[in-house]
C-alpha cells in the first residue's frame, strides 16, 4: 500500500476529481446512513400520507397517465431524430452528390421499415 501511495501524483489536476468523487460518495451515503441511524421512527397515518405542503391531500397523488403517451413519445423521438439528420444533409446536398443521396435513401428506408411496423402494429391508432 505504501508503495502504491508513492506512485500517486498528488499535484495532478485530476487528483481533485478523485477527491470530489470520494467526498460526494461519502456525503450521499453518509447522510442516508445517518438519517437511518439517528432519525426517530414514528410511523402513523399522517406520516404515510402524501405530502402536500402540509395541507391534507384532496386527491390521490398518482394520476394515471395512459401508456399510449409513452408509445407516442418513442415514435416522436424516432422521427424527430430523422429530421435532425435530414437538415444538415439538405444543406450539404449539392456537395455530397450521389453518395450522400444513396446514403440518406438507405437511412430513410430503414426508418420506413420501422414506420410500417409501427403502423401495422396499430401504434398510430388511439383506442
Amino acid at each position: 500500500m505504501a508503495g502504491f501511495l508513492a506512485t500517486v501524483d498528488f499535484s495532478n489536476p485530476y487528483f481533485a476529481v478523485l477527491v470530489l468523487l470520494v467526498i460526494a460518495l461519502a456525503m450521499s451515503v453518509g447522510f442516508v446512513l445517518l438519517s437511518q441511524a439517528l432519525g426517530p421512527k414514528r410511523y402513523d397515518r399522517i406520516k404515510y400520507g402524501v405530502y402536500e405542503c402540509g395541507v391534507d391531500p384532496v386527491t390521490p397523488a398518482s394520476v394515471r397517465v395512459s401508456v399510449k403517451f409513452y408509445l407516442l413519445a418513442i415514435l416522436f423521438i424516432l422521427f424527430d431524430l430523422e429530421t435532425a439528420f435530414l437538415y444538415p444533409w439538405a444543406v450539404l446536398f449539392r456537395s455530397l452528390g450521389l453518395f450522400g443521396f444513396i446514403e440518406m435513401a438507405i437511412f430513410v428506408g430503414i426508418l420506413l421499415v420501422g414506420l410500417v411496423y409501427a403502423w401495422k402494429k396499430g401504434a398510430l391508432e388511439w383506442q
Partner: protein
Amino acid sequence: MFLGNLASLRFFLPEFAVTATILLLVLLHVVTKSPRSAASGFLSLLGVGAAILLAGITPPGDGRSIFEGMVAHDGFAVFFKVLTALATLVVIFMSMDSKDMEGRSQAEYYIFLLSTLLGMFLLSSATDIVMLYLALELVSIPSYLLAGYLKGQERSTEAAMKYVVYGATASGVMIYGFSLLFGLTGSTQIAEIGRSLAAGKATLPMLLAAVMVAVGFGYKIAAVPFHMWSPDVYEGAPTPATAFFSVGPKAAGFAVLVRFYYTVFAAADPGTGLWRLTSAVDWPFLFAALSALTMTVGNLVAVQQNNVKRLLAYSSIAHAGYMLMGFVLLSPAGIQAILFYLVVYLFMNLGAFYVVVVVSNSARGEDISDFSGLGTRAPFAAVALAIFLFSLTGIPPFSGFIGKVYLFAEVIRREVYWLAVVAALNSVVSLYYYARIVRAMFLEEPKDASALLVPAVPRAMLVLLAAPTLILGVYWEPVARIANDSVRMLAF
C-alpha cells in the same frame, strides 16, 4: 491507416447480412398473420449462416481500422464474429422447438436475437470508445428485451427489470471511465489513447479509468462482484435466451476486454514477444484477484443450487473466472488460451442448455429432480448431457480438459502459482455439482417413468454439439492454430 467510409463497405459484409435479415424479419412479422411462423426461424438461420460465410471470406484488410478508425477488421474480430454467429445459429435451432415460445410471436424474438448479434459483431471489433459504447448498448438493450420476452410471467419480467437496472448502472460507470480517458488524452481512438497514456505519468486517473471501465466489461462477462444480475436473469429468461446470454455476449465481452486493455494500458513488445504495462497501474493484478473471486464465488454458490438453469448460471460465472486467468498474463499464449476455451465452452455449454430445453419441454420445469431417471427415460439425451457436464468439469478425454490445460499451462509458465492453485481447487468443487446432475440422471428413480421423446432436430443438434466436445478433446490442433493466428493479428 484509416479506410474511408466507401472503401470500408466491402469489409463490412457480415454486418450487412445481419442488418438485412433484421429488416426482412420486421417486414415478415407485419405480413404474416400467424403468431408462430416457422418462416422467421428459417430466415434468421439463413441470415446468420450467410453472415458466418461472409465473415470467413471477407478479404483481410491492409489497414487495421475501417470507417475512419471506428472498427477494426482483423483476425481477432473475425474470430469473434464467427464464434458469436455460431452461438446464435445454435440458439435459433434451440428456440424453434422450445416450449417457452409457444403461442408467442417468434419473429420479434429473432429480431432481438439478431440485433444482439449485430451488437456483438461491432463490440468485438470496435476501436473507438464512442463506437465501443454504442456497440455495448446494442448488445445490452435487445438482451433486456429477450430476458423479458415471456410477457406475463413474473420471473421473466423481474429478470428484465434487474437486467436493465444493473446494466444501466454498469454502463454509466463505464462511460464515466471513458470520459476520464478522453479528458486525459483528448482522443476517442483506443490506439491513440494508449500512446498518449504511455507518454504521460497520470497514474491516479488512469487507475480510476481502468477500474471504472472494468465495471462495464465485468458486467458483460458476469465477473464477481458485477455478477448479481446473472442468476436471476438466467433463471427468468426463456431457456434458449439464457443459453445465448451465457455464451454470446460473454464472448463479445471478452473480445472487447482484451482489445481495450491490451491497447490502452499495455503495449506489444516485439523483442520479448509479450505485452508490457505502459503505466504503474497494476491492472493485471486487479483482474487476477477478480478471476480468483469470480471462480470461487461461482463454484461455491453453484453447489447449493437445485434449479439446473441457476446452477448453469453460476457455473458460467465460474467459467468466466477461469478464462480471466488467461487475460492477466500479458502473453499471446494466455489470450490464445482464452480464445480456445471460448470455442470449447461454446459447444459444451450450449449442449448442456440444449438438453435442459429438451427436458423442460416435457417436464415443464428444470429442477434437478426433473432430471432424475433421465438415463432410462431418454438415454440419448442423458448421455449427451453427461458428456457436456464432464467436459465443463474439465475431465479428460473431453475438450474442456484441453481448454483448461492451455489456461493452466500458461498461468504456471508465467509463474502465477497462487492463481493456478485456486483454479485447481475450484475445478474439484465444480465436479461435485456437475456430478450431482449425472447422479440424478443415472442413479435415481424417475418420478414419471414414461419414455421422454427427443425429436429429430434436437437429436441431430445434440450430436453436432457433442461431436466437437469429444473430438476437440483428442484432436485440437486446428482450433488452437486458428486461435493463435487470431491473437498474432491483434498485435504482433
